[in-house]
């Protein structure tokens, strides 16, 4: 391996990246992905139009109303109308939630008679409805019961318990999107850097000179690796200061895991570049094979633990899940290097990355097809 050869190639790659302005793509694309997805997938519902029918007019009912009024999730109005009138308003899409506190609620509550609160939710958009339902239950049990001795047992709400939507949505989504962005962008760059030479014909400089495959690979993969290493910090700052995420875990775990993850992505790009010979095909193939698993099997939309058997296995075969586990930990949980799962997953990612690169270099041929 000759360092000068590699250096010359890397220098050329950087010149090309700067002058062809492809560099813009390196930094704009991950940012775009994070911004578009980070703001675009909002499972959180705020300012639901809520009508409270207070038939009790007691201290307890006022507490409950108070809890709804002081939450950003509801725009609460207390109206003096009948149930039917309120339901009619829902049908006319004038309200999303109706909370019906029956007369004698407080009395029966203190007599331990399990009074009921009627909750009606507009189910036009099922996901939104479930989310709102989750909020209402949460508000009733947690917020309203601070000053009143209400427990979950004591209120019987006419609803099934559904999966508990996180109260802070961006927290749940942004780390996953970082995982998505860093799966797509380095892969695309790595694939393009090699395929571009094939398409233009400059690949002959590699074919016809004594450069070895290893030298060529190092020269081709180092620039995307270095350039995307900067994204490790850019995306972190974005998550912390624009999306307001906490950072509870180890920075070094975040750094190490992300760098390894970039290697995994480069490996995917390398494999694509071996199979394709035009930049357009390379781009489309890379996007297809990264964006779908990066999104569906990452745990962003659905927790891996609640997946069906097949998708559970598929998720474990793909690298995204492992990285996302670690990155969620660093942002939200903070068990860091002491968690054995984190270490195991880090190891899996490392092996994954090395295996992909080895596979790619095995298929890379120093000759025309």
């Amino acid at each position: 391996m000759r360092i000068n050869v590699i250096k010359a190639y890397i220098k050329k790659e950087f010149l090309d990246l700067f002058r062809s302005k492809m560099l813009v793509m390196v930094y704009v694309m991950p940012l775009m992905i994070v911004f578009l997805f980070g703001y675009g997938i909002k499972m959180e519902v705020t300012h639901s139009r809520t009508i409270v029918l207070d038939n009790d007019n007691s201290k307890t009912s006022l507490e409950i109303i108070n809890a709804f009024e002081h939450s950003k999730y509801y725009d609460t109005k207390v109206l003096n109308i009948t149930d039917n009138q309120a339901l009619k308003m829902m049908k006319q899409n004038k309200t999303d939630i109706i909370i019906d506190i029956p007369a004698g609620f407080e009395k029966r509550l203190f007599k331990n008679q399990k009074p009921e609160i009627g909750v009606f939710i507009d189910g036009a958009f099922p996901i939104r409805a479930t989310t709102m339902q989750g909020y209402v239950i949460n508000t009733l049990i947690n917020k309203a019961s601070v000053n009143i001795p209400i427990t979950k047992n004591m209120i019987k709400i006419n609803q099934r318990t559904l999966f508990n939507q996180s109260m802070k949505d961006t927290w749940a989504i942004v780390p996953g999107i970082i995982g998505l962005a860093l799966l797509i962008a380095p892969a695309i760059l790595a694939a393009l850097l090699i395929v571009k030479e094939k398409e233009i014909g400059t690949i002959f400089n590699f074919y016809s000179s004594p450069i070895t495959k290893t030298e060529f690979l190092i020269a081709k993969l180092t620039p995307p690796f270095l350039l995307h290493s900067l994204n490790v910090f850019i995306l972190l700052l974005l998550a912390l200061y624009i999306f307001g995420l906490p950072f509870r875990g180890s920075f070094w775990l975040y750094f190490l895991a992300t760098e390894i993850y970039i290697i995994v992505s480069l490996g995917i790009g390398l494999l694509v570049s071996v199979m394709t010979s035009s930049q357009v095909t390379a781009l489309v193939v890379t996007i297809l094979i990264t964006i779908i698993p990066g999104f569906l099997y990452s745990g962003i939309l659905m927790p891996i633990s609640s997946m069906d058997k097949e998708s559970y296995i598929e998720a474990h075969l793909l690298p995204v899940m492992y990285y996302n586990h670690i990155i969620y930990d660093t942002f939200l949980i903070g068990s860091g290097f002491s968690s054995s799962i984190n270490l195991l997953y880090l190891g899996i990612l490392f092996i994954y990355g090395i295996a992909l690169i080895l596979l790619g270099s095995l298929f890379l041929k120093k000759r025309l097809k």
Partner: protein
Amino acid sequence: MIEVKNVSVKYKNIYGIKNASFKAQDGEIVGLIGADGAGKSSLLHAISGVISFEGEILYNNEPYHSPKEAEKFKKYIGLMPQGLGLVLYDFMSIKEHFDFFRDIRGIKKDIEYENRLLNMAGLEKFQNRLAGNLSGGMRQKLSLILTLLHRPKLLILDEPTTGVDPVSRLELWDIVNEMREQDNITALISTAYMQEAEKMDRVMLFDEGEIIASGKADELIKTAEPYTYSGELKYENCVSFNKRTYSLNKLDLPKAKPDLESLFFVNALQKKKELINIELKKEKENSSNEVVMKAEKLTKVFGNFVADDKIDMELRRGEILGLLGANGAGKTTFIKMLLGLYPIDGGKLTLLDKEIKSYKDRLELKSKIGYVSQRFALYDDMTVRENMNYFASMHKIPLLEANKKIKEYAKLLGFENYMDKFPKELPLGINQRFSIAVAILHDPVVLFLDEPTSGVDTIARSQFWKLVKELKEKMNMAILITTHYMSEAEYCDRVVLLKAGKKISDNTVENLHKKFPDAKNFEEIFIRLIK
């Protein structure tokens, strides 16, 4: 010294080159001559060790059988692949290219040698210019000196002169000759230009994946002498082209001096290849030579670049007009203006005494013009018949009439057996004829042919020119043809020469020959005119 023994290169089930064997001594220039797809590139790639092959290649008596085994010889080999400046990076300057090529070859900087190379290529003044901003000829010269940077012993040039203007072409040859004289390098050079054979010590002729002849050019030409007769005549089992007739049987005709092209005809006869005789029916008695198309001071500007500067041109019925010029001289832009594809920035265009101004005029213009583009605008997923039907209906030719015409042309132009094949399955020559049939379906008065013969083999080319001549004589069409083969200018009646967007000559071929009586061929005339 390089020795090639029974080398074959296979692409799936098709042989790119089959059982090629030859030897080249130190300091020898060996030429590989043949059409596109004849196997030249495959053989050169095999020798350079950039493609898998069967057989054996010996470099200084050391054998290699695969790209992997060739690896240790790559420091002695310099390959310049086919394509204008293919190995260059558009965003890097000449200087940076030198740095890059020096470093990837792991050699030390030799300022004296590098300056010598730059001088030879005439690029010393442009060292800071990006490769993307160099002209085609300059790119090619840069590629060549970069290939020479690591002082290869074996120089492999794949069509270095294709698409390069004649002046740069001569300069490229000068560099190769100088390197041969001073450094005693061996050079394998492929070319589609027969005339370049005289610059080579030895030539190999390629046809359909085989070497059909090899040796000294003049000795090879002699072998065709017994079969070459003068004059163009129609006999059984004969083929005639360019004032010569070839026959394996003795003919009662005066003998003629053959040239390298003759060998391809003789080979075709020996292999009993099917050669069609193109003969059109004379339509109406019409021999007027009125001006059908007239361009006056036609100008096209892109930004601040003047692609065509006040060009005048007249096109007459029954005339073949050659539009010549190097890459970037403004040929294609000019044709596109004539076709109504580009709006005209200045000047006047008249077709059949009617000035072309509006969009409607341009539509009208298109219905009177037949156009065959460089890449034949055919649909690959439709058969020949379907393609022809499609174009017929595009030109609103009534179905019955169209069918009759298609049948007739298919017979006359010799592709009736291929009507239900897809264009991709057919040789370039047949596609070319059927593209012309498509272009003349709607009885245009003018036919434009844009570089129709690039890459086509000798025989198909000869048949093409016969067809063009028939179109001129029997249908009295006005034909405008662009080409970068200077030798083909001889088949035109008149040539218009463009250089950097300006017309520098407009004269009949006859007159030009009279003007330069000592010029050996049209290429020389062209170079003198350009200078």
